[in-house]
């Protein structure tokens, strides 16, 4: 019960990460093209294959993948620093993001040696971008209800169904899809498997979905008699649910669950420093700095657990819930602040950036598990379920 709370004991980043942080910074100074804050605010939704390739050339895509597969072989702490620096700079990391954070580690952990040798070097070279096929038109938070089905056929599997809200599917080469490979939807978590779907295969069609900010960051993906070879299956047949859950601690506890609005916040601070309203908002800035410090330390505490090979899934859910709340507060507060006095001029970049972030911020507590799901997980961790 109180085990959950006692998990959040302060842990420090190892001192070696200071040097690594400086290296990342130097790389960003040289390779990150200047962009206005409303573009940088896209953060890990910002898709830029050229930047991903530069990062890969430096060896930092596939951060935690062993070097024998072309990866950077970074420990969890160094990956934390890399991600923190990339997000703080507003680097467009979306192209390789999912492969780096989830698909690569998943293939490393559950894939066959042949799958590792095929996919991991491509991921690390930023030549293979991945998306994750989870939600379906009738399956959102209730993920165990997936209806997309892989059926055994001569030489492999036949895939039928559809996925929706899949981030970047229209830009990606592969999807790791959670689908039903046996039984019925009523069997819930049983009978689900994960397949790597080559999105260029016949029978796959991808339709981008435009969002309220004018971007198309997610898609609907349709599978019509898509033939998958045997080696498309990742891990054991029927183990899809367990495999998906094994990655959740990585997905939910990182700096990206705290820093989604950081470009906006930094830019507001820049504007305050050169304007006349700094005094009026100093306490608000202080509150954000305080919350950010605590959240960062919580994230580092969980990173320390990951570094030990543990899988603190509930702790990660807890961080994501409170972290996204912080991320969502930032645009709400800045919106109010810029209009405190209608006669005061508003920096046009700030206006656009806060507009973008305030419109897209609701997704922060949808993607990767909704607020309601996460609070349920925390409750389970407290022994209430």
């Amino acid at each position, binding site marked *: *019960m*109180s085990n*959950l*709370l006692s*998990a*959040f*004991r*302060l842990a*420090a980043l190892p001192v070696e990460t200071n040097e690594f942080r400086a290296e990342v910074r130097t790389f960003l100074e040289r390779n990150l093209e200047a962009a206005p804050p409303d573009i940088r605010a896209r953060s890990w939704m910002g898709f830029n294959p050229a930047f991903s390739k530069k990062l890969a050339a430096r060896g930092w895509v596939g951060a935690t993948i062993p070097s024998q597969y072309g990866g950077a072989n970074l420990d969890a702490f160094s990956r934390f620093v890399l991600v*923190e620096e990339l997000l*703080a700079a507003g680097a467009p990391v979306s192209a390789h993001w999912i492969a780096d954070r989830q698909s690569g580690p998943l293939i490393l952990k559950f894939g066959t040696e042949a799958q590792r040798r095929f996919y991991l070097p491509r991921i690390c070279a930023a030549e293979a971008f991945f998306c994750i096929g989870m939600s379906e038109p009738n399956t959102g938070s209730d993920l165990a209800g997936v209806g997309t089905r892989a059926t055994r056929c001569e030489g492999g599997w036949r895939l039928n169904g559809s996925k929706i809200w899949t981030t970047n599917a229209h830009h990606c080469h592969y999807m790791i899809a959670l689908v039903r490979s046996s039984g019925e939807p009523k069997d819930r978590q049983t009978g689900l498997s994960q397949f790597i779907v080559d999105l260029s295969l016949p029978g796959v069609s991808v339709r981008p979905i435009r969002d309220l900010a004018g971007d198309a960051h997610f898609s609907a993906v349709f599978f019509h008699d898509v033939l998958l070879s045997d080696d498309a299956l990742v891990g054991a047949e029927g183990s899809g649910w367990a495999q998906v859950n094994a990655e959740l601690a990585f997905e939910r506890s990182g700096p990206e669950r705290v*820093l989604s609005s*950081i470009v906006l*916040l*930094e830019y507001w*601070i820049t504007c*305050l*420093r050169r304007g006349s309203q*700094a005094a009026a*908002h*100093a*306490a*608000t*800035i*202080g*509150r*954000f*700095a*305080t*919350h*950010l*410090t*605590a*959240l*960062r*330390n*919580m994230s580092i*505490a969980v990173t320390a657990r990951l570094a030990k090979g543990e899988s603190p899934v509930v702790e990660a859910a*807890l961080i994501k*819930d*409170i972290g996204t709340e912080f991320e969502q507060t930032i645009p709400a507060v800045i919106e109010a602040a810029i209009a405190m006095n209608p006669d005061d001029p508003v920096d046009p970049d700030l206006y656009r950036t806060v507009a973008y972030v305030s419109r897209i911020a609701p997704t922060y507590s949808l993607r990767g598990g909704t607020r*309601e799901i*996460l*609070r*349920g997980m*925390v*409750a389970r961790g*407290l*022994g*209430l*379920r």
Partner: protein
Amino acid sequence: MFTEAIEDILKDQCTPAMVRAIEAGGSCESLWHPLEANGFLELLASEAHGGAQLPLGDLFPILCTFGRYAMPVPAAQTIAARALLPSHAIPVGMITLAAAFRREAGGIIICPLTPYGMVADFVLARDGDVLLLLPGARARRQATGVHLSQTATLIWSNENGATPIPGVGAALPAFAAAVYAALISGAMTRVFEMTLEHCNDRVQFGKSLGKFQAVQHQLSVMAEHTAASSIAAEHAFHTDRAVPSLLAAAMAKSRTSEAAALVAAIAHALHGAIGVTEEYDLQLLTRRLHEWRVAHGSEAHWNLLIGQEVLASDMSLVDFVCAV
């Protein structure tokens, strides 16, 4: 090691009944004496001075334990005060930290709204760069009028009996903020545990409260803010130096103070009417959460200081936060 030994004493001597008795004006002796006699007030003192020379990081769980037990005596404050004072100036008895200090015409000294001001033998106040150790026995203690509160405004008609220690005044606000952050964190954790227990035990509509999703989500939010507060408080003690850094202490007090109100509110909401009764122990802790939030600067005070530091620097916020 020290934490367990101290908790053993508190289990026996800081029972809810004892907290109530001391709040009602009863003797502190049976609680204070074992802490003093076992040397637990000198945890931070150097070994040369007979202390345990405990690093601040190891003091943190001890202060949290004081918070958990709703300490009705200023043990945490005395430990901090003894660390701030030179050995020759350390008095025997309970020392509390003044949250505010002012001089008035005619040599009058006032420490308004001093936590534990009703019971402390001494008050350690900050007078600019100077620390001033003031004898409680010579003060007029003015109660706040708040039911059962040990906070008091102390008034001295002159400086007789006061000991000035020059040059170290600035350390007091940082140390006090860190101490109260730890106390709040400890009390909050206990409040959370009590609420969780209550929700498991109390049955309505044929099932325990904890089975209702709306209740589960409230408990989850409580856990989140309790965890964030705990790590923020611990951060202030994560230093090799003798005194917490002002910035880390400021963040600790801000984060815990903000959460204190929320956590107390959810705890009472989930306990129902029983939670606000005198006989139920929750109030021993939630009253202190509010009192400690207000003591030594709320989040409103510390956020301003932190924000001014951020804005005055030329660092990015992420860099600033990494450097705290």
